[in-house]
């Protein structure tokens, strides 16, 4: 399923608009938009696999991207030997005890006959397990967090090259998705929505609260980057000569070059993913997934294991979201759990998929570009609009100040209206499924 002339036209318009941003606003802004659009496109691809191929409704995208981001810290940051000495073993042992408790409860549940005895046994296993775990885990955690709390206070990572974190992020997200999917798939779709909403809040709560893991709300900053930073590029001779040719300042050129480095990396990942996704969609497997989506009952009658297939695609899609999350953190060079908001990281991605065209990979990519562009540009546009509306008012009037202050929230309104209009008038999106 290749692109039609119309689809190519839509992409061409999008890139023309980005080029105009580079010309009339600033090249840095254009590159920033391009990079975030590429990352969003990967997230949208993941969601499109779940929703477009299989009709699964995941509202926990934020959680999966955050787990991917955590992988960057755990892979790329240098380990903190003092912290490991202080409580590393205790934390590992505590985590293992916690897992053992849960497994123990599961074994008891499976092995014993239903009844009061089983309930009591499970309760006993969980209670004892909890007490032992907290005795081991609590002190170790305190000890780790006490190690040089101003700049460390956590275990650190493995000190490996940061690129490795991308696949690891995907694996982390896949693991979380497997747990959630195991519980809530097989029931009807709205349950998955509520379960994923819950797990994403929990992931963020863990990231914020467990300081030994990734410093919590103190943020991990200065993570190694896969591309040279602008400040390192400035003294490089070819960057300086490029700046001269373009007539830009050296710092501007350096940041554009650095940003384009990320764009190249992201483009490679996106291209591989799209190639894989298109191959999968047009294979017998893809046809089976769409058959399940369109009519579960008849797919089941044909002997397809619907729940297993759903679990599989849910894990795959979430892994893609985790990959995107890892890429985003390694671009920013920092993990800030406080910045993960569901509106931005879950629902915005949904708008991208719906606007772009659910079921079509190219649609998801285009949707990501269009919506991210709007998301960035609506704010200044809103301010300009408010300026126009309020230009008749006195400069110091309260209403005017209030309206100008709240121009930022115009973007939420715009996104909602865009989503509703698309659902109503073009439910198949900009590039419909074929």
């Amino acid at each position, binding site marked *: 399923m290749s692109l039609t002339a119309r689809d190519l036209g839509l992409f061409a318009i999008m890139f023309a608009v980005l080029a105009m941003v580079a010309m009339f606003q600033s090249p840095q802004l254009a590159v920033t938009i391009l990079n975030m659009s590429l990352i969003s496109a990967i997230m949208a691809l993941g969601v499109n696999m779940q929703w477009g191929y299989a009709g699964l409704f995941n509202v926990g995208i934020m959680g999966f991207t955050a787990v991917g981001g955590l992988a960057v810290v755990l892979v790329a940051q240098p380990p903190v030997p003092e912290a490991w000495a202080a409580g590393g073993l205790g934390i590992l042992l505590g985590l293992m005890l916690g897992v053992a408790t849960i497994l123990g409860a599961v074994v008891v549940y499976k092995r014993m006959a239903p009844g009061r005895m089983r309930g009591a046994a499970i309760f006993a296993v969980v209670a004892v397990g909890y007490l032992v775990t907290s005795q081991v885990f609590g002190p170790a955690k305190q000890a780790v967090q006490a190690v040089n709390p101003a700049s460390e206070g956590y275990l650190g990572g493995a000190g490996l090259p940061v690129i490795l974190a991308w696949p690891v992020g995907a694996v982390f997200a896949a693991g979380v998705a497997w747990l959630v999917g195991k519980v809530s798939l097989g029931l009807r*779709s709205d349950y998955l929505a509520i379960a994923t909403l819950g797990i994403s809040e929990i992931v963020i*709560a863990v990231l914020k609260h467990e300081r030994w893991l990734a410093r919590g709300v103190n943020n991990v900053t200065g993570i190694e980057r896969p591309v040279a930073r602008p400040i390192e590029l400035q003294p490089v001779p070819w960057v300086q000569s490029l700046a001269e040719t373009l007539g830009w300042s050296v710092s501007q050129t350096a940041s554009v070059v650095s940003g384009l480095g990320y764009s190249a990396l992201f483009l490679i990942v996106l291209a591989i993913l799209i190639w894989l996704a298109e191959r999968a969609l047009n294979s017998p497997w893809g046809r089976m997934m769409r058959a399940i989506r369109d009519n579960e009952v008849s797919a089941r009658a044909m002997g397809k294991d619907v729940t297993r297939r759903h679990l599989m695609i849910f894990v795959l899609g979430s892994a893609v979201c985790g990959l995107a999350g890892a890429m985003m953190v390694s671009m920013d060079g920092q993990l800030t759990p406080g910045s993960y908001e569901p509106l931005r990281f879950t629902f915005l991605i949904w708008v991208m998929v719906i606007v772009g065209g659910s079921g079509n990979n190219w649609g998801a990519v285009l949707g990501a570009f269009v919506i991210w562009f709007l998301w960035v540009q609506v704010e200044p546009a809103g301010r300009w609009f408010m300026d126009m509306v309020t230009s008749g008012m006195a400069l110091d009037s309260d209403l005017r100040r209030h309206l100008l202050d709240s121009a930022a929230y115009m973007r939420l309104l715009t996104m*909602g209206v865009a989503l509703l209009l698309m*659902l109503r008038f073009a439910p198949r999106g900009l590039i419909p499924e074929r």
Partner: protein
Amino acid sequence: MEPLNALVSVSNFMLIPAFAYGSQLALGALGITLIFSILRFAHFAHGDTMALGTAAVIGGTFFLQAQGVTIGRLPTALLAIPFGIVVMILYLLAADKLVYKYFRKVKAKPLTFVMASLGVMFVTNGITRLFMGVGETRFEDGERFLFTVREFRDWSGLAEGMALRSAQAITILTALIVMVALFWFLNRTRAGKSMRAYSDNEDLALLSGINPERVVVITWTITAILLVLAGTLYGLDKGFRPFNYFQLLLPMFAAAILGGLGSPLGAIVGAYVVAFAEMGITYAWRRVFGYLMPDGLEPTSMMQLLPVDYKFAVTFAILVIVLLFRPTGIFKGKVL
């Protein structure tokens, strides 16, 4: 051993707040369950609509305060609630007419409705923030306490104190009245019966001459009343921050599912279970056990099962347990 002190302590820090929180959740969960049983979709805009309703009430409150109108010891917001309700009825009916009605007409899949409610959520969210910003707004006025810790201590002579905030008392009282009124409405009035009939079997209800659009209008109206009350009471109790209302979505859904979706009684029971579980598991029991255990055996740790930051995890665990073992909920609601 001082069981009385233990009881007072646990009431002050856990039972009363949990009871108030549960009442707020119950009003919200009732709305979710009603929409689910009549319109048959999971209403994701619930939390944000609640925020908008509360914002309308706050606007009304500030207007009244500026006019110098108050009601003595009670919060002025109570006077502004009818205004908020009217605004929200109009808002929800407008949303229904502009958005959901079309999807009903084309008999769209339930998930399309959910998606549309996401759109409404965005819009509502934007409107609320346009008016209120993202910061916290406090609008509680009047007498803050029915009785304070000091008054209780002087009166009872116990070492532990207990306070009852007026917001909590009003919440619990209002919730009880509203629940009784709702059950009376559903079971005794013609409109309520037609709602239940429509929920049980759409085709049969149509056949017996019930006008579906009328049922839908009544449902949104009741939802608006519940929403505004729940939102205002929550705001009086804990202050108004739009994002907190969004986060109420998870406990409200958990309550509705736990009770059994489509069952109003279930939603109420579910809400109290969720509230008490959240509070109980994240509460530091040290003081209570300090009073209960014999001398010399007082606990040294906080006796807190989970830090407060993980109250979502508690809700989520409840949800998972229900989904695994009894997807129909306590009161045998529908499976989604």
